[in-house]
């Protein structure tokens, strides 16, 4: 299909509408709720209107994004941004705006697609819930915030929308606020994210300090230079700062250290993308309704961390532009630790959503590791494919939960394949894809990361391969326990309505084909040559990455993954291996370590409840109520006490006053006499 270039250009230049529409819808619903009274929220027509408005806004965004993609695809060097002043004073300016380039377009498509399917699915999932319209409002607000984050032109705007997606996540995790667990989870999510935001903030102000004179009058901390203006992009400003010496290439505890700055900025992604050691909020976030888990805590918001690292990639690079920097090594190590840690935890969990949450955590570790080892395109490719199959898996788990009457414990499921065929088949596709089954989406993207990691550092490479085996194992443990064998629940299970399984089927298509379509090249795969695949021709840093296929790594990793599947099959379907039972029964340290999530929650809980809060309490009581108030009250006590004493001098007798006056005069005369020079 060929489109009018003018039309495509207009689409790009009006990209702000994609962001604005969900915001308007979200605010509209909430305002009508507030002023139309709560009764309005129960009306069928209002619910339908809220649902339709939300879905139309995001569907618009989806088609608009597709046109933007077409505009950028047909004109490879094209990008567009527009900035508006947000805060100005004499010599300081903060801007917000929207930037449309390849990276942003890719994320726009991911976010709008997933959000669209999730919103359709929500109609089925939340149908009975009294907060149906409110839920759509939050969904729209989240979608708007996430899209705003995606099109951010500079670090300040990114930080702002970063917080906004965080708060939407807070609202949605705590959607069922009357549940104690949800109340605790949403607060935990926000506060843990704020820990990351603190580091992010410090990193950003360091960046500002180092580069403040080098933006050439353009937008401060801009990601990309504006066409036809004096503005400078991030890489350019950093380069100038390094030359001027306000930024130093070595790691040091100083505001001018570039690696320190990068690591601090990475603090934000550590929290947002649930990386070790700030991953603790993500599993608890599963207290939110399942569509949220799919949209926010699997596909989009948690990927914002990956997106930020990709956007701010120049900060992470070595001064010569190489990927062998300290900061990227840090990213790679954190990503690898997260991948393997989350995978070991996922093996022993029994809540269907929590297994998926840990697997999300682990896959985000892969993406981080990918960016860290310098595989920019591969890391984002995995973000892309993972978004589809993980959203599908979560929506599938939601269907299972509904089908089993709000049961989340996989020990009370089983045999659902016959009862819920659509859910089962899509879930199987997702499981195969995430496990790295050949020719499915996950296989292409994950193995690109693993191959790059192997070249970067064999230790990281082997850890990631081993993790792929663990992933295949725990995902199939989940699949077999839920869908094979005998049904073990108390209530009769049923298949969900088409409005819920249709989005699953739709998402299954990219879960199968996206990897092959974008990741396969004839030259690389069949002819042994080197070539850039369709994906890395569109999403790349500086220049498209040209890579051959490392069949050894690919083969080993595929074999390990298939081994994991086979192991799970023998253990949970054939039941010829019974180690699982003996491990659970022996309750040994390794099992407990995994079951208790490496004891991070206990550690942090103790730190806050036994360490920080008592410390604050005691310090505050000591300072404010003991020291300061005692000084204040003491001062007033001295005043009133001296008043008490002195009041006895007020006798009211004339001769007494005359005596006092006489004595004072005598005293003063005597003093003057002593002190006078005439004496």
């Amino acid at each position: 299909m060929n489109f009018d270039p003018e039309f495509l250009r207009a689409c790009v230049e009006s990209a702000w509408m994609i962001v604005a529409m969900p915001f308007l819808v979200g605010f509209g619903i909430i305002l009508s709720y507030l002023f139309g009274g709560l009764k309005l929220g129960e009306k069928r027509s209002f619910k339908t209107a809220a649902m339709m408005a939300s879905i139309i806004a995001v569907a618009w965004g989806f088609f608009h994004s597709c046109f933007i993609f077409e505009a950028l695809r047909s004109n490879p060097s094209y990008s567009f941004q527009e900035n508006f002043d947000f805060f100005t004073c004499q010599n300081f300016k903060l801007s917000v705006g929207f930037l449309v380039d390849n990276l942003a377009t890719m994320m726009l498509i991911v976010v709008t697609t997933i959000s669209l399917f999730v919103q359709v699915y929500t109609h089925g999932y939340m149908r009975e819930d009294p907060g149906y319209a409110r839920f759509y409002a939050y969904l729209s607000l989240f979608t708007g915030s996430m899209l705003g984050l995606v099109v951010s032109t500079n670090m300040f705007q990114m930080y702002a929308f970063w917080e906004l997606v965080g708060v939407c996540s807070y609202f949605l995790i705590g959607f069922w606020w009357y549940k104690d667990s949800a109340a605790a989870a949403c607060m935990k999510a926000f506060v843990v994210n704020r820990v990351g935001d603190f580091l992010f903030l410090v990193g950003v102000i360091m960046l500002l300090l180092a580069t403040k004179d080098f933006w050439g009058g353009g937008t401060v901390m801009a990601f990309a230079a504006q066409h036809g203006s004096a503005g400078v992009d991030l890489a350019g400003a950093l380069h100038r700062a390094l030359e001027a010496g306000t930024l130093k290439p070595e790691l040091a505890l100083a505001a001018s250290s570039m690696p320190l700055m990068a690591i601090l900025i990475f603090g934000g992604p550590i929290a947002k993308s649930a990386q070790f050691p700030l991953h603790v909020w993500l599993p608890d976030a599963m207290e939110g309704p399942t569509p949220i888990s799919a949209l926010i805590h699997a596909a989009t918001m948690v990927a914002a961390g990956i997106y930020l690292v990709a956007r701010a990639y120049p900060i992470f690079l070595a001064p010569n532009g190489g990927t062998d920097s300290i900061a990227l090594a840090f990213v790679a190590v954190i990503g690898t630790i997260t991948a393997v840690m989350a995978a070991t935890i996922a093996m022993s969990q029994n809540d269907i959503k929590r297994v998926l949450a840990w697997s999300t955590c682990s896959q985000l570790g892969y993406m981080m590791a990918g960016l860290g080892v310098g595989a920019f395109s591969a890391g984002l490719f995995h973000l892309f494919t993972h978004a589809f199959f993980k959203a599908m898996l979560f929506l599938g788990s939601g269907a299972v939960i509904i089908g089993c009457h709000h049961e989340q414990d996989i020990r009370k499921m089983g045999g659902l394949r016959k009862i819920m065929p659509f859910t089962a088949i899509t879930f199987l596709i997702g499981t195969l894809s995430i496990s790295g089954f050949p020719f499915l989406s996950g296989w292409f993207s994950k193995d690109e990361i693993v191959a790059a990691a192997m070249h970067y550092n064999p230790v990281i490479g082997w850890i990631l391969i081993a993790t792929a085996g663990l992933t295949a194992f725990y995902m199939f443990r989940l699949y077999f326990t839920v869908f094979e064998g005998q049904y073990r629940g108390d209530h009769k299970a049923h298949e969900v309505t088409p409005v819920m399984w249709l989005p699953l089927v739709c998402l299954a298509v990219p879960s199968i084909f996206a990897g092959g379509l974008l990741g396969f090249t004839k030259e690389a795969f069949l002819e042994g040559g080197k070539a850039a695949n369709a994906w890395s021709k569109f999403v790349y840093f500086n220049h498209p990455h040209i890579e051959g296929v490392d069949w050894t790594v690919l083969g080993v990793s595929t074999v390990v993954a298939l081994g994991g599947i086979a192991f799970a099959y023998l253990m949970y379907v054939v039941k010829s291996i019974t180690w699982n039972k003996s491990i659970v029964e022996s309750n040994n340290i390794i099992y407990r370590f995994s079951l208790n999530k490496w004891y991070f929650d206990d550690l942090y809980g103790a730190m806050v409840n036994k360490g920080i809060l008592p410390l604050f309490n005691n310090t505050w009581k000591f300072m404010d109520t003991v020291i300061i108030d005692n000084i204040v009250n003491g001062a007033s006590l001295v005043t009133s006490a001296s008043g008490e004493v002195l009041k006895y001098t007020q006798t009211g007798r004339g001769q007494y006053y005359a005596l006092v006056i006489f004595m004072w005069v005598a005293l003063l005369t005597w003093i003057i006499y002593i002190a006078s020079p005439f004496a």
Partner: protein
Amino acid sequence: MDNALLLKFLLFLPLVAAIVIAVNPSKDDKDARGLAIFVSSVMVLLSLVIGAGLEGHYGGMQFSTVQHWIASPFPINFHIGVDGLSMSLVVLTTVITLMAVLASYSIKTRVKLYYANVMLLTFSLLGVFVSQDLLQFFVMYEFELIPMYFLIAIWGGPRRGYAAMKFLLYTFFGGVLMLAALLYTYTQLYAMDPAAATFNMTQLSASSHALPVHAQVIACLGFFLAFIIKLPSVPFHTWLPDAHVEAPTPISMILAGLLLKMGSYGLVRICMGFFPAFFAEYGPWVLALGAINILWGAVACLVQKDMKRIIAFSSVSHMGFILLGIGSLSNAAVNGAIFQMLSHGFISALLFFMVGCVYERCHTRLLPEIGGGLAFQMPILFYFWMFACMANLGLPALSGFVGEVTIFYGAYTSPFATSSLHGAWTQGWIVAACVSVILTAGYMLWLLKRLFYGPEQPKWKGHLYDATMTEKFVATTLCALTLLFGVAPHLLTNMYSKVGDRITSEVLNRIQISQTDTTTKPNL
């Protein structure tokens, strides 16, 4: 219409209204309330009209009225006028006063006296913000004590006597220091050049720069202490939680929303504007004090059990941002600090109003007694509470964020942060202050959780009711303003930034002078 006349009218309207309300013969309390609402609404309109008339001339003093009164031995004049900074605070005052008057529906005793006192309070607040004569400023600043004392002592909670006296003594102590500093400034100027001695604030903002460094430091210290007691700043902050806890809801709104701003306004207008040498010398110390405030307020919030105390301490924490901003002397941070005072005016008024709404229903402020689950009974108030908490913890798109982020960005790139002498010190305190983004989120969300989240408490079942129309109106107005200024901060910055820019650049020039001048060494 003549704007100078309107400004005079605006200033004296609440004074007249106070008398009229007090002596009106009607026995019906509703008349007093109606009259107060009417007068406050008129004041809002007047302030907007005057503000509109100021358009384009935000930098200089406008609409001045000078009435000579006593010429000798001191020239004492009645002198009022507004520039962008004063005007934005005047608008804040009229809006918050209207909101507070509307929120006073819970006052049932001695209503006429109450509204008369509120009007007197407004008069003194407006007087502080429009005074252009230092003595008049001082009188207005001190006059506020009288109505405030009675408002706390008559309509307050159980420990109102203690709280009102504590408030009075603390502030009075500051007032004495200010009087001393004011006279000291005058005599020093007189000693330098009898013709330069004046109480005219516009002239002072130029002539007092010529004072020697030690004289500026001594004079500024007096003003500084007076203002940070009002602000309040650690270690002079303990009057604030007591006063807030005991004060009735609308008075808390005025106290947090407006009274504290007198301190921060004074810091910018007088301390920074008159005595740049003080900031050139001790800026990093002021910044450190700000950081300590931010952290100390936040730490105190985390250990309180009384919801009103939490909000009170969070005010201490948020006013610390202002100290941090002005101490850094960065153009962005000083403007951010002014933004923060305006934004905090709206947000803290909203929060205290929200606290009042819950107290009105539950008759307790203690979180363990409330026990959570209030969202069942008050879903609409839950929304407003969420909004207020988010505004307070600095959520982007709400006004609190703009202040915080510009202060952090500005302070970290300030001349002190890059100087070899104070760089590490300044940067260290700013990074420490950044920890507050975690602590603030912690205490605000914990508060929200302990109030609204969780299962329904049987004791509240059927006893509580949701927001009334008045409550919705007040809360919505304040929320809307917070959102408006968070999304379009230029609506506010346009008004005051010329003044902020001018004051900062004067201080920065001073730093350059003192750096080239080898005789004055910074004392750090």
